[in-house]
């Protein structure tokens, strides 16, 4: 978008809320069930083994780590499903499943710990929704229950309510006794909750800014080509779900676009700290290949950068 008029034409995102309603959507409350497991995997932070912009290469010794991730499954954990719905990302396993709901919904997250490699306890702790302490998933000796310390082979169902102030995007993450290793290894994901009559965007991109190994990553990957290559075409509504995990602040920047932040001002860069999250969006009108990245220079140089490709409007 190349001018104020274009910005004004952009679809406004307010605070953690997503896109403005365009078409009424079903508002009847639903029970949404998700089946998620903690599974061990080997994860390559730099699958093409290079930083194409700097022209340096990285040996697998530095980029491949054994870790544990959240993985989405069909009912009863029978078959794995992609973590991201079609159009939301082009990678799997990190971040964890995109858990979508609408205000008024009851969300049941059935969690199973299949970490038979490290044999660590795991849990899921959700931001932004309402729940009883038993579904908090946060380990506190003497107080927390089974859901905060799910042992390998065990299961637990978290019962959550998307209430009126739950609209927007929120993190979830491991908060069990193994929280530190789990968060460093990619055990986090998004809850994405629409308002009652809000229309879902055509494209929803998940951006988690977090350190991993010696790299600064987006969705557990570092450097252009390795980080998600997000795609859309002119005319589509796009929503970027952004959050940070770890102990550092980040400044999320998308080239060639601007959006309106919670305070009503225009932004092309927005700060996000650990476990903070926001959704921004617009109706796409700028074809081309664009960069998105953290504008903390040291983070960008260490891998926190990716590309976003907008195709012309299909004929």
């Amino acid at each position, binding site marked *: 978008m190349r001018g104020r008029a274009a910005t004004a034409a952009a679809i406004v995102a307010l605070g953690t809320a997503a896109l403005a309603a365009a078409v009424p959507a079903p508002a009847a409350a639903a029970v949404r069930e998700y089946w998620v497991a903690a*599974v061990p995997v080997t994860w*390559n932070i730099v699958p093409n083994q290079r930083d194409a912009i700097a022209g340096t290469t990285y*040996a697998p*010794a530095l980029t491949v780590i*054994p870790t544990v991730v959240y993985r989405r499954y069909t009912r009863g954990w029978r078959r794995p499903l992609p973590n991201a719905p079609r159009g939301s990302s082009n990678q799997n396993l990190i971040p964890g499943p995109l858990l979508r709901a609408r205000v008024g919904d009851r969300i049941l997250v059935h969690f199973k710990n299949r970490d038979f490699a490290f044999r660590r306890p795991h849990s899921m702790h959700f931001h932004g929704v309402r729940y009883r302490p038993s579904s908090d998933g946060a380990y506190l000796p003497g107080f927390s229950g089974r859901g905060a310390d799910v042992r390998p082979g065990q299961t637990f169902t978290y019962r959550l309510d998307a209430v009126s102030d739950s609209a927007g995007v929120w993190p979830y993450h491991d908060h069990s006794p193994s929280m530190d290793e789990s968060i460093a290894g990619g055990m986090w994901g998004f809850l994405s909750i629409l308002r009652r009559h809000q229309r879902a965007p055509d494209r929803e991109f998940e951006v988690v800014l977090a350190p991993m190994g010696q790299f600064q990553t987006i969705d557990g990957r570092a450097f252009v080509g*390795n980080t998600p290559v997000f795609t859309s075409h002119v005319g589509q509504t796009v929503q970027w779900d952004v959050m940070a995990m770890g102990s550092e602040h980040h400044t999320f920047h998308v080239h060639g676009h601007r959006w309106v932040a919670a305070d009503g001002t225009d932004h092309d860069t927005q700060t996000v700290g650990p476990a903070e999250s926001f959704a921004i969006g617009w109706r796409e009108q700028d074809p081309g*290949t664009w960069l998105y990245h953290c504008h903390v220079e040291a983070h960008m140089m260490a891998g926190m950068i990716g590309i976003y490709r907008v195709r012309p409007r299909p004929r």
Partner: protein
Amino acid sequence: MRRVLLAVAVVLAPGALPAAAAAPAGAVMPLTIQFAAFAPPRVDVLAGDTATWRNVSGRMHTVTAADGAWTSARLSTGATFSQRFDVPGDYQYYCQIHPFMRGEVDVHRLLLTTPSEPAAPGRPFVLAGRAALPAGTVVTLEEDAGAGGRPAATATVGAGGGFRASVVASASASFRAVAGADASPPVQVLVLDRTVAATARRDGRRFKVTARVSPASPGALVVLQLHLRERFGWWPVHRARLNRASAAAFRVRLHRRVKARVVLTLADGATVLATSPVVRVGTRR
């Protein structure tokens, strides 16, 4: 990354590497007591490790030091006995009830982990180990391909007692870790020179890429890579295990013509042992 990995990936880079987060000193060596034998009958452990025997037989046994320094009680089926070993040396033990049953625990200050996969000639290969030596101790990895030992790499013992270094072997050899008067038992590194052949042919609306590895390496991991502009290089898209005929097939559907190749890798799916020639896949819209 569909494949679940239960073992820690072996990793490679030239030269010495930072100390691994390998198991620190104080690991447990599980052993079993069978009907008429200890299994395995001889093990190498690190000073500070604990050996734990479990009686998996249907009769009573003991685990008793040959010099009488320690003994278990009578162990019935399912019972266990643990003994910690802090001082290097070879410790023989036997069963007092069945004195013909004998075993030995050899305690070292340095141990190398036996590589789980073969190496490739001329490519870096990581050897990892544990030391019951102060952090910062420099360990030399010696290679012996049959003509006597020669230093191949050095590593530094980390805070957790782990160390690792990458070595380049041109042929199968034995390696040991040496620091002062201490030396680990040797481990064998098998070096195989493998080649990957790949063919691509149209299969309906898709392309079928078939890879074959020789010498035969059934079970080894191969990865199909595509050269993609938006990925800025070779991008892994599918992985497979070689079948009994040392072959694997991949199917891809692409609306553009791109270069493809198949690489043979370590269990990490990233460390390349051999690369096929490039083939072309995909059709223009």
